[in-house]
């Protein structure tokens, strides 16, 4: 173990939780109590879940998207906590996805210095059954709704849109000394594995998204998804 380098790579899970606006902080403090070291809250926009609301333009909802990175030692506790929150009623309505992360780069805790035995960092056996896929589209600003409309026709139920900025260009476009950056929208859609390809294909075919430079998409395997705050019927 190198003394000057107090960082460490460990195996873990990424929880992406999508909850109603202003409930993000609550979720973060809950995960912290279960051992998470922090969380990052992004402000997202949920798309319509029904065609009628979509047609009326009433479907958008405000969301908080919470990213929680957890190493293997605390991930199960967080997972259990999220599952337990199912019984907490409407207040925390949302969804949480668990994604496997090969390497988390982090500062080592002082308490870990003694027993940073690499063997403890080995991954817990993961089940290979893949039920769901998280498709992520990074698109030029404004086009996430078009992509969502196409995805909905191919079977997706709903998605969440985040705002972002691109940094892909090799040199910045300047205007009076100001560097201009392209604005992006990030669309997250959680789908059944069997539908994923059809949805990607459908979005690919949208005319305004088939030009070069329109965007990029990738899909991630989701180990488990947890309905938050759903009251058992």
């Amino acid at each position, binding site marked *: 173990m190198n003394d000057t380098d107090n960082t460490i790579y460990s195996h873990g899970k990424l929880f992406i939780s999508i909850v109603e606006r202003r409930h993000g902080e609550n979720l973060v403090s809950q995960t912290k109590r279960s051992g998470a070291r922090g969380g990052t809250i992004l*402000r997202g926009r949920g798309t319509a879940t029904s065609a009628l609301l979509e047609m009326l*333009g009433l479907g958008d*909802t405000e969301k908080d998207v919470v990213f929680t990175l957890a190493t293997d030692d605390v991930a199960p506790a967080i997972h259990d906590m999220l599952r337990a929150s199912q019984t907490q009623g409407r207040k925390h309505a949302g969804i949480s996805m668990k994604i496997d992360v090969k390497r988390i780069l982090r500062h080592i805790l002082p308490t870990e210095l003694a027993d940073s035995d690499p063997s403890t960092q080995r991954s817990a056996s993961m089940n290979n059954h893949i039920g769901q896929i998280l498709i992520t589209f990074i698109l030029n600003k404004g086009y996430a709704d078009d992509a969502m409309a196409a995805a909905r026709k191919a079977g997706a139920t709903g998605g969440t849109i985040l705002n972002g*900025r691109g940094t892909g260009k090799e040199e910045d*476009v300047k205007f009076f000394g100001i*560097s*201009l*950056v392209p*604005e992006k929208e990030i669309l997250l859609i959680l789908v059944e594995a069997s539908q994923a390809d059809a949805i990607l294909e459908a979005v690919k075919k949208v005319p305004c998204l088939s030009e070069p430079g329109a965007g990029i998409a990738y899909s991630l395997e989701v180990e488990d998804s947890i309905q938050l705050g759903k009251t058992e019927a």
Partner: protein
Amino acid sequence: MNLLSKLRETSISVVPIILIVFILSVTVAPIGWNLLIQFTLGGVLIIVGLSLFLLGTDIGVIPVGQQVGSALVKKRNLTLLLATGFLVGFLITIAEPDVQVLAKQVASVDPSISNTFLVLMIALGVGFFVSVGFGRVILGLSYRWVLIVFYLVVFLCAYFTAPGFLGIAFDAGGATTGPMTVPFIMALGVGVASVRKGKNSEEESFGMVGLASIGPIIAVLAMGMFSKGGAAVESVSADTAPATNVLQAFIHVFPETIEEVGYALGPLVLMLLAFQWLLLHMSRHQVAKMLKGLVYSFLGLVIFLTGVNGGFLPIGSTIGNMIGALPYKAILIPIGLVLGAMVVLAEPAVWVLTEQVEEVSGGHIKRSVMLASLSIGVSIAVGLAMIRVVTGLSIWWFLIPGYVTAMALTFFCPPLFTAIAFDSGGVASGPMSSTFILAFTLGASASSGGNPVTDAFGVIAMIAMIPLITIQILGILFKRKEKRSTVEHLEHTVKETLV
């Protein structure tokens, strides 16, 4: 669904106003059941209208305005950017119904001034300052110094102008930035700033509305400088006769409101369509969404204003009248404090601003905190306005110390909060204050034997001024808290490493 959560949020801010009026009606101002029912009905219309309007701006005006702002910057043509800014400001203002109302007020002070000329001047002023706002972001000029320079111009003009114009001029700054213009101008600013790289982008997102509201002040003051002055001051009739039937009050104002909102929205729609053809080329889906948003904003604003004009305006002046006539009229001051605190929460543009602030700061500056400091600000403002009604002090005694304080605070406050503060000045003085609060103040002033024109006008100027101070104080508090928490965090880490 958003509509439901919006309904819930707007109810929370409107219901307290209704409760206050109920309390007043059983204590000092017995206005009777008929008017109370009319007022409550107005409140319901306000809740529904406000929710619909906000929903519409969320999916229509704001996203498209932001895209227009970004697209303009990406063209990398300064002349185009400034010219478009000017045109947008000019066209939007010419169509703003509040400007027409203001022109009539000015005419009541000096009938020799032509309405059309004044409206033209105000629109030129707003156009110029929207242009300045764009230019400032691109050229990287500090918001503080731009403000200081132009407010010096304002006070220089104010020194030379006829005194009758003072209150109206400062009212104009707040009043002309109406509920339709504010979201669009604000969105443009956010859009322009959002394509800027670097951490300053957040700071440059706001401040457009604050600058735009300087335009009308200078325009009216300039008119006052050329006015022959000292013209006959007509007594302002506080209100029309109360309608006999509760429903009639609303039906009466409905067509007028549709016309007003239509006038305000018309040029905006034409501009958005022009932008779509020339600049944006959005997909059909996006255009459809924008149009839906515009329809909701239109309906929402019509319902909202019907509620305000039919329900809140007449009751405001009646209550003001009754309380002003009381032997202990100093009670106006606490009532003003309470009403001010409540009413600002029902201003449409306030909701739009706080939402944008929350969005741009990524949730760092919470809406609830913004609303609370705005509420305190407007509460103080209306309280001060009531002191003027009771004592008849000149507005100078308030404006000069107020603006000097606001300017001085810019040196201590983080730039982001300075920009938000000057925006909130224009935003807090929306249709609720220019009807309900103004009517209340006029009524109180008339019945307490004051001079409504000099005493009561100026209330909007106060509402536009005090938030400049309270929001900047909020900024200073934020800065201190952040410093402290960073220090605490460092200490914590050091301790942890030592252990």
